């Protein structure tokens, strides 16, 4: 090895090293953005860790558990009638609907059936809580996209629905009204006419939203073709409710489940949309509110007479056994798996809540989108934080 060749070699190594240094300098590093836990887009305490390249999302991970309240464990030290007060708080916007599957599971274990009148009123309240839940989404989606006005309309008209729920149950947000074997009370006098009037208002609200939101060109540009979820991917991630129906899957437990509610007594339609994008998720929910109005109206017309409570013992002891009941709640499929050892309290309650499964798709659907679309897609998936963390 001569000096010269050695020098050439050194120069070559130096050049390579400087090249490498330049490459390292020019290589851009992604930015990690924490959306949440305190962030306006998550309406609650969900944290989405977003890895960004510019404004493009490389990876998005939802972190949950900031609001975990341990309802499954708490239910193990509550008697059966006490559990309903607890599960009200899971999806706090449609609280009555949370009680229904638990009560149905307990009824299954005790082998009692609510009288027809109780079943009908239960279904009416179930659908009213769906309306009060979903119209808030219809307004909130506008806020997430920058239009502040729709959400005020939503709050205005939700008030009427809450008033009707309060008139029956005494509670606006947390009714705690469902009982094993029926309902706590009957509906008050004059309630049917009032509710019919409220349904008219909700229909007007839906028309307003159609004008103000879905008909808006900017809204369509922001949501059409954004966050597309194909049906097989959605099913694989366990999506349910309007999210999966917006992908074209015709699946609704109100029609297909056959649980003890009165949905099969009336004439209604399951809405689906073939696109699977944010717009179709909005559109399907809008139609479902209208459909719920139709369901309630028909049910109101034919409530059977009779008692609202079956014969159940004063102190409820549920015989040993297991039962799983799921219903089509406002956010999607909600199920309770109740294990009883023949005690005053359930041995184990497993809650399958819809939002928990619905947001599991976020890493898949958010990858490669832009930051503004992260917000609109998350909003269109429509989760309630209490429903995720329980």
């Amino acid at each position, binding site marked *: 090895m001569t000096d010269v060749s050695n020098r050439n070699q050194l120069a070559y190594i130096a050049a390579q090293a400087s090249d490498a240094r330049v490459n390292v300098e020019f290589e851009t590093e992604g930015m990690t953005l924490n959306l949440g836990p305190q962030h306006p887009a998550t309406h609650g305490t969900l944290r989405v860790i977003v890895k960004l390249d510019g*404004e493009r999302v490389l990876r998005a991970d939802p972190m949950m558990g900031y609001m975990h309240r341990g309802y499954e464990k708490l239910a193990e030290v509550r008697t059966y009638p006490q559990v309903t007060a607890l599960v009200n708080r899971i999806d706090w916007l449609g609280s009555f609907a949370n009680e229904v599957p638990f009560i149905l599971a307990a009824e299954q274990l005790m082998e009692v059936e609510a009288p027809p009148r109780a079943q009908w009123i239960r279904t009416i309240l179930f659908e009213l809580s769906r309306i009060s839940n979903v119209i808030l989404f219809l307004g909130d989606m506008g806020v997430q*996209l*920058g239009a502040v006005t729709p959400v005020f309309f939503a709050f205005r008209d939700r008030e009427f629905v809450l008033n009707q729920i309060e008139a029956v149950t005494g509670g606006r947000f947390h009714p705690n009204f469902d009982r094993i074997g029926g309902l706590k009370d009957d509906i008050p006098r004059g309630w049917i006419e009032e509710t019919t009037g409220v349904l008219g208002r909700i229909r007007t609200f839906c028309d307003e939203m159609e004008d103000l939101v879905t008909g808006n060109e900017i809204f369509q*540009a*922001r949501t059409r073709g954004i966050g597309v979820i194909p049906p097989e991917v959605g099913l694989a991630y366990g999506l349910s409710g309007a999210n999966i129906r917006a992908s074209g899957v015709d699946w609704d437990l109100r029609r297909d489940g056959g649980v003890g509610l009165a949905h099969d007594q009336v004439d209604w339609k399951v809405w689906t949309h073939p696109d699977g994008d944010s717009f179709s998720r909005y559109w399907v929910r809008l139609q479902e509110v209208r459909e719920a109005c139709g369901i309630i109206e028909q049910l109101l017309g034919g409530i059977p007479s009779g008692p609202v409570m079956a014969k159940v013992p004063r102190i409820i002891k549920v015989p040993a056994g297991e039962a799983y009941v799921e219903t089509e709640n406002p956010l999607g499929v909600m199920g309770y798996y109740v294990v009883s050892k023949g005690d005053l309290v359930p041995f184990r309650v497993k809650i399958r809540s819809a939002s928990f499964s619905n947001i599991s798709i976020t890493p898949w659907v958010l990858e490669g989108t832009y930051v503004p*679309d992260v917000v609109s897609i998350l909003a269109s998936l429509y989760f309630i934080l209490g429903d995720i963390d329980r």
Partner: protein
Amino acid sequence: MSSAILAIELAYWQQTVLRALLGLVAVLLPAGTLVYLFLFKMMSFMQSRLGPMETGPYGSLQLLAEVGKFLQKEDLIPAAADRVVFKLAPFVVLISTFLLVLVIPAGPDLWFIDIDTGIFLALAVSSISVIGILMAGWASASKYSLIGGLRAAGQLVAYELPLVLAVMGVVIQAGTLNVQGIVMAQASGEIFGWGGIGNPFILTQFVGFAIFLIAVQAELTQPPFDMPVAESELVTGYLTEYSGLRFLMFFIGEFATAGIFSALAATMFLGGWYVPGLDPTDNLFNVIGPLVLIGKMVLVAFLIFWFRFTYPRFREDQLQQLAWKFLIPLSLVNIVATGVLKVVF
């Protein structure tokens, strides 16, 4: 100013003090009017609520309460912030607003500076605010602020072009860059030989008026162009870390600029301080001119705020597409058409 008309001789320092005070009034008055009239009241009525009702008759003193609240707040500066730039940014934004008000005439003799390139000056100083916003976004040492600041810079630069090009049509038609000249051209103009209402340029420059309003909306970063402050994703963008007086300055800057841009639009397209049927050189206009101008300003601002409260926001790329692919070609066509028609008639 009006010293010659009122036959009062004022020393230079007296004139300067007078001008400074009037400038303050000219910036704060439209800001206050718009905040109360539109942000507090019109927005509330559109959203089926009442808005402020407790402070004064119909909540008219709410504004004072808000300002008092902001003044009491602690002036927070993030630990990692670039302190000097962070503190300076709101002043830079306000400076652009104050310089903008200089060129707008409120009567035949009522204006701050009389220069032949008035419109040019206005459009030039309006883009100073970009620097302030970029400073705020960068110096806050927050990711939300940074993204917001960069979005704002991209957006403001993009919409600067349609703004200028929309004004070009007016300038061609009036044949002058002098703002007073533009008002006079509208006041003394004729529509096919009939001079009844003068010739407000909105009749011929309606395309320019629409483009101007859209571009102004984008310059103000108001919905549907509020991607830089998108509160649902970026908290409030470049404003995130600001509190107290500095936030108030950004706030005043936004609404004062909205008012002044509306006044500019009223001046260029609606005839400014002129009322049809009167002699534009009449001394009367030195008295009623400001009122007429404010009336027209509120009218234009109503349009801006109407859009603001109704529409969702564009995404950043859609926003840029609207500017480059639609507004700029359209305004170029408008300029060509104006030029051809100017030569023909």
